[in-house]
């Protein structure tokens, strides 16, 4: 029997993954009551919800979180705020879990160990698919139950839970297939995630090209679109769910058929052959640094630009919702003229904090190269440690300048498009670039920590960054003294709409240079730490 031992394998998979599954369940389903609660507070009356429904349908919201419908009900608002996040997150969870217990096990050689025993050819794979189908169903049920317990309509809640399960099952099938195609777990995850990204973009296009609250026809090319078209809390359609289940079963059958045809450990796609040697540019320190961080740089750039467009696109709508006496609005306004201006300044700073996270991660390679032992071979070559580390500081410094300029312009463009004023971009670009000295200080501190406290450096720098984020974004809400809140590396910078002041920028730059120079000197004069 090709399924001999399937029950043992199911128990085994549950035992290896129960904690992971539990965490996913709590985090994903737990968001439902939190969001319902906050939305009920934000839109307490039917008038408030109706007012929101008037402004909810913007292209940015349609593209990012799905085309709003039934926006005048709490269920509809829940869908706008949370549906896309939960559907995508649950799909990714299922993809990662299937790969972790499928291709990753095979790649690690543990499947060989099991299959050499009394275990049917498909038992492990099938057990894997069954366990995570049940997992997806439980998450969906929990979402429905929590929504009902919060007083939302039972019918709509069941359809919402079912729509999550439907989308997740399609991606379970896709992960089952990609796990057969590639020989590495990274490859399987990347391929399945790429399919997810394409599905997301197709439906984003269809939601933007919508006719009133009907998405364009090609949303039917995307599994995420099928889930959306169940229109929970709206018309509550059941047949898109059947489409999801049928496609999921088909994909799983394809995966098992592929498994029957291939050797253990092999894939269907040919292994990519790597470069025989490094290119002339790849051999330089600059080339090496950019090459190692390539996918991370692309990811951060795309993420930051999408975020910037979102910030610019929603600012006007959000400002309309917040009245001046709301404590959250007060925190946004700060020293600005009005809520809109305060909100835009706040978003520009939040964007700069994201760029700072990129700069921190990028410059952190100075420490990680040493702690992984890869620095040893480089430092015993003909390059001084100062030059070696210098390249790894200049890359994040220059890239974050470019990112600040681009994302600042993107906020301005999206905001300009919303208010019909195309000349907004330069103003935002300048306000965004003003945060460059703060980011230089971040890089300086990273080098300083890598040099002085190599083993604790990563934890300390990320910890400091976390404190800076909390102080910058929510410092006012904590009731901290004004001089503290105003003088952190990111709040000291003159905000968009405030008077320009050169002094903070000069002080931040000077601190960055001192920290960086002292860090480099110390890196040159201390012992290498062993891996």
């Amino acid at each position, binding site marked *: 029997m090709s399924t001999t031992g399937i029950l043992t394998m199911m128990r085994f998979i549950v035992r290896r993954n129960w904690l992971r599954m539990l965490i996913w369940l709590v985090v994903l389903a737990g968001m439902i009551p939190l969001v319902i609660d906050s939305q009920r507070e934000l839109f307490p009356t039917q008038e408030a919800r109706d007012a929101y429904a008037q402004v909810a349908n913007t292209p940015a919201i349609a593209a990012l979180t799905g085309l709003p419908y039934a926006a005048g009900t709490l269920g509809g608002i829940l869908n706008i705020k949370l549906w896309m996040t939960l559907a995508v997150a649950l799909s990714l969870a299922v993809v990662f879990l299937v790969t972790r217990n499928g291709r990753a096990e095979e790649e690690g050689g543990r499947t060989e160990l099991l299959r050499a025993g009394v275990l049917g050819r498909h038992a492990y794979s099938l057990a894997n698919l069954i366990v995570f189908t049940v997992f997806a169903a439980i998450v969906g049920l929990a979402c429905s139950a929590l929504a009902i317990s919060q007083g939302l309509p039972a019918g709509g809640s069941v359809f919402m839970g079912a729509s999550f399960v439907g989308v997740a099952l399609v991606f379970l099938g896709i992960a089952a297939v990609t796990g057969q195609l590639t020989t590495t777990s990274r490859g399987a995850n990347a391929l399945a995630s790429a399919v997810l990204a394409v599905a997301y973009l197709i439906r984003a296009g269809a939601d933007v090209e919508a006719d009133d609250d009907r998405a364009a026809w090609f949303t039917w090319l995307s599994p995420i679109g099928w889930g959306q078209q169940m229109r929970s809390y709206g018309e509550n359609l059941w047949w898109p769910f059947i489409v999801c289940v049928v496609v999921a079963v088909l994909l799983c059958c394809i995966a098992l058929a592929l498994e029957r045809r291939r050797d253990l450990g092999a894939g269907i796609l040919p292994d990519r*052959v*790597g*470069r*025989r*040697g*490094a290119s002339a540019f*790849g*051999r*330089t*320190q600059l080339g*090496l640094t950019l*090459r*190692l961080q390539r996918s991370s740089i692309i990811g951060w750039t795309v993420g930051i630009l999408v975020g910037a467009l979102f910030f610019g696109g929603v600012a006007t709508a959000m400002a309309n919702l917040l009245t001046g006496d709301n404590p959250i609005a007060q925190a946004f306004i700060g020293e600005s003229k009005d809520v809109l201006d305060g909100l835009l300044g706040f978003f520009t700073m939040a964007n700069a904090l994201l760029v700072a996270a990129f700069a921190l991660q990028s410059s952190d390679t100075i420490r990680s190269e040493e702690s*992984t*032992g*890869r620095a*040893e*071979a*480089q*430092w*015993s*070559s*003909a*390059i*001084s440690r100062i030059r070696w580390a210098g390249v790894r500081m200049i890359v994040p410094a220059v890239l974050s300048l470019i990112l600040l300029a681009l994302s600042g312009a993107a906020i301005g463009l999206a905001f300009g498009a919303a208010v019909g004023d195309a000349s907004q971009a330069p103003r935002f670009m300048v306000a965004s670039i003003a945060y460059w000295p703060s980011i230089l200080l971040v890089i300086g501190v990273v080098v300083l920590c890598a040099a002085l406290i190599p083993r604790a450096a990563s934890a300390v720098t990320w910890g400091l960054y976390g404190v800076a984020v909390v102080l910058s974004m929510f410092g006012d809400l904590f009731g901290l003294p004004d001089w503290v809140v105003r003088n952190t590396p990111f709040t000291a910078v003159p905000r968009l709409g405030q008077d320009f002041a050169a002094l903070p920028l000069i002080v931040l730059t000077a601190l960055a240079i001192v920290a960086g120079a002292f860090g480099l000197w110390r890196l040159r*004069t201390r*012992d*290498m730490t062993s*891996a």
Partner: protein
Amino acid sequence: MTTTLAVDVAGLEKNFGSTRALDGLDLRIETGTVAGFLGPNGSGKTTTIRILLGLLRSDGGRAMLLGGDPWKDAVALHRRIAYVAGDVTLWPNLTGGEAIDILGSLRGDLDRTRVDSFLQRFDLDPTKKARSYSKGNRQKVGLVSAFASRAELLFLDEPTNGLDPLMEGVFTECVAEARAEGTSVLLSSHIFAEVEKLCDTVTIIRDGRTVESGTLSELRHLQRSTITVTLDGDPSVLSTLDGVNDLVADGGHATFTVDSGALPRVLAALAPLNPRELVSSPPSLEELFLRHYGVHAAATE
């Protein structure tokens, strides 16, 4: 050249906190020779090499490398040396070929033709990502990079870890060729056969201190040889001779050790006993080594 020493270390000291890693270590490598560096794990071999590479700073003593200071002149000296660590770590998402090119470019003497010939000899596929390499293949990346360089001095720290016997053979050839081209080599190793075959001199260290150093024949000279004889006469008279130790006599067979200085006298005493067979084996490196670490060392302290 003002000096014929590629490496000249005397009284080297290094502390890690309260741990004394090196405690007056001496090490000399004449230019163009292969020096073996023996010692158990944790005895200070890697620490010594890292000080010579300018990765660690010594706390005392003298260390000279190719006539320069390994800490102050690090970058200039590194153009003339190559290093293979005992556990080569690579960038998981770069191929072996890329890593070799990058390390060669850093040193500034990348020669693709030489790299290709060593890739062939070590039978290494340079198009695979380092993530998929076995331990042995990662060592090969380090070895190809080092041998393909035109370095005057090679530091090899237990370089054959994880290589199969075939590849160990290739490694032996490569070291012999490098020596023939005038390259100096420091070979730290646990494999006695490798060191006996390749090394002109041997330095044995213990707890961060040099306990024995010299050419193999010099070291052997200080030690007893083992002699096995078959005699017509009674071997028990041997026990009365000065310089004979560990005598085991069984009928006409006898095995004993003898100090090298006493050898002529012992042979003269053996002749009247009418020896029919005589085998004399010099002490192996393993015996020399174990003498400092094994049961014998413990007994003499």
